């Protein structure tokens, strides 16, 4: 184990898998960078967030492919290459850009296997940065997982820490289905212990970050650390919670959620997304449908408001669910009967 940033962990996973399997390729805008520039250096970028840094040097431009600003063609490239036998890792830079590539994601890659009678496989990873926290405003800050988790045929993962980032990216690349891999941009520089050497973590299944008795707190991505902060504060008042890191939003680990709920009887869902038809809604619905007998109080959803992501520091801070709001929500759930 070594302490690394999530950026380093992701980079390590790409090196690991590209060394292991010559069919793994990386495609996207500036995944290397520098082509046609006046300095003459390739790998001038290594991805806008530095996640693909260094790959060009080792694997060359047939496996690390810089592209024009043509997201439909980027995803199409991944789709066709996957059907023909490769394992492409496409980068979409910002999750918000799915809008210009959506058809290739939701009508093509997601449906190939089913429509084509089960004989095709589409082992594609689409990496995207997501989330608020950098004052990047309405078109560069969205969390896209609800929209994509709704699509049958896609798997969607949202790692919350560097170890998962490494292990789940490796697993996503090895997986035979299309995986949407969402990296929270405010977490790239966050640090954590990362297993050294070859490491693959399960792609599905939530993880119980800490256990308690008064409520079940289900969350994901950047919200995991915020919820943990809230939980730490509540522990001082003798309130303890099961804190579940979803890790994957498609599929959702219903079992762990329902089991925890059967012990705590109370549910708080913390989701950075807009509220409507969100993962928070889905989990609340699962509880209302399958965990009703356990529920002793109203479910509490903690989400962003039903507004675009605003720009100003003060606005974004109010927009993103923070530890205080989470703490208040847990108190509400625990007091509610």
């Amino acid at each position, binding site marked *: 184990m070594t302490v690394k940033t999530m950026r380093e962990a992701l980079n390590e996973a790409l090196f690991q898998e590209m060394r292991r399997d010559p069919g793994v390729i990386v495609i996207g805008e500036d995944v290397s960078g520098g082509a046609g520039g006046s300095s003459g250096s390739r790998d001038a970028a290594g991805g806008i967030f530095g996640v693909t840094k260094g790959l060009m040097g080792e694997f060359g431009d*047939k496996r690390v492919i810089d592209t024009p600003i043509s997201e439909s063609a980027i995803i*199409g490239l991944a789709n066709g290459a996957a059907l023909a036998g490769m394992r492409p890792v496409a980068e979409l830079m910002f999750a918000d850009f799915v809008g210009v590539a959506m058809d290739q994601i939701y009508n093509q890659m997601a449906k190939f296997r089913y429509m084509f*009678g089960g004989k095709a496989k589409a082992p594609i990873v689409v990496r995207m940065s997501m989330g608020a926290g950098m004052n990047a405003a309405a078109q560069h800050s969205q969390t896209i997982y609800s929209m994509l988790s709704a699509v049958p045929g896609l798997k969607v993962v949202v790692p919350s820490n560097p170890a998962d980032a490494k292990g789940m990216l490796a697993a996503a690349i090895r997986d035979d289905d299309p995986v949407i891999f969402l990296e929270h941009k405010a977490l790239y520089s966050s640090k954590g212990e990362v297993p050294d050497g070859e490491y693959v973590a399960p792609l599905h299944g939530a993880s119980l970050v800490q256990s308690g008795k008064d409520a079940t707190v289900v969350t994901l991505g950047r919200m995991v650390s915020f919820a943990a902060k809230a939980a730490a504060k509540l522990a001082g008042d003798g309130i303890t919670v099961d804190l579940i890191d979803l890790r994957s939003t498609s599929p959702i680990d219903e079992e762990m959620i329902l089991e925890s709920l059967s012990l705590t009887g109370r549910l708080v869902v913390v989701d950075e997304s807009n509220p409507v038809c969100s993962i928070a809604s889905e989990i609340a619905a699962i509880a209302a449908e399958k965990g009703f007998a356990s529920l002793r109080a109203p479910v509490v959803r903690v989400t962003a408001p039903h507004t675009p992501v605003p720009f100003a520091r003060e606005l974004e801070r109010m927009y993103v669910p923070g530890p205080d709001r989470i703490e208040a929500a847990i108190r509400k759930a625990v007091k509610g009967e």
Partner: protein
Amino acid sequence: MQQSRTDILKAYRQMRMIRDFEERLHIENRSGEIAGFTHLYAGQEAIAVGICEHLTDRDYISSTHRGHGHCIAKGCDPRLMMHEIYGRADGLCKGRGGSMHIADIDKGMLGANGIVGGGPPIAVGAALVCQARGDGSVAVSFGGGGSSNQGTVFEAMNMAVVLKLPKIFVFELNGYSEHTGEGYGIGSDLVGRTRGFGLPVFEADGFDYFSVHQAMADALEHVRAGKGPCALIAEATRYFGHFEGDPQNYRAKDEVKTLRETQDALLRFRRKVTEAKLIEAAELDAIDAEIAAFIEDCVASARKAPAPGVEIMLSDVYADY
């Protein structure tokens, strides 16, 4: 016409297969036997076959909503296609795909596509694999004239040029995009616009198998020389409506009739090869008879085949659960 007798007979057989398949679907659709949206390819056979006769299972094609012809030409089993279109459990896609989603990856057939412009970006990806293999294999996307206005297609063309891929963009101009003349939607001229992307354009008479076959030979020579992608543009017409049920108000009543009588791909093929004394008319007649019987049999077996059940509805969403 430097093709062997075998090649010529095979090409004729494929064109006849497509024609009979389509004419029969037209009937089956009218009678209500077949469900869903069906877009018939009849009239354009020389294009699919003229191109695909050059290809093997290592080469890839992507197709469109009007895909039966491409599928058959690329080697999909017509019987399994018929079962699919009948929505049977033993259809090529287990009855889940239907007319618009027929695919057979083992044959290099990457799918018909319900989305106009959906195929070309995918074929560009397959071309990347061909390039990496370096075995001379290529990827071909088929598209109608209307599809040439879709942003995804423009992006695919530019991407293929940037990456210098062994990719051929085929545009089949059948005169219409749904109910509108193809010329209306293309603001400039398609050949010039395509060239502007840096794609050499090979043109062919889409009613003439030999013209298409030659253009495809030229296109292949270009891409296999490592010169990057190119385009092949051919005109033909569709004999039926945009979809089955289309009243075709946009079309003069005699337009198809005249073309059928004067330009028909099978007719011209037959005339050419018999006049050149390459093939006897009787040989072609025998193929016609054989295929008529085969199609009849496909329909009969499709009618008897089992309907898909709930396990087919719920499976193959994911590879592992």
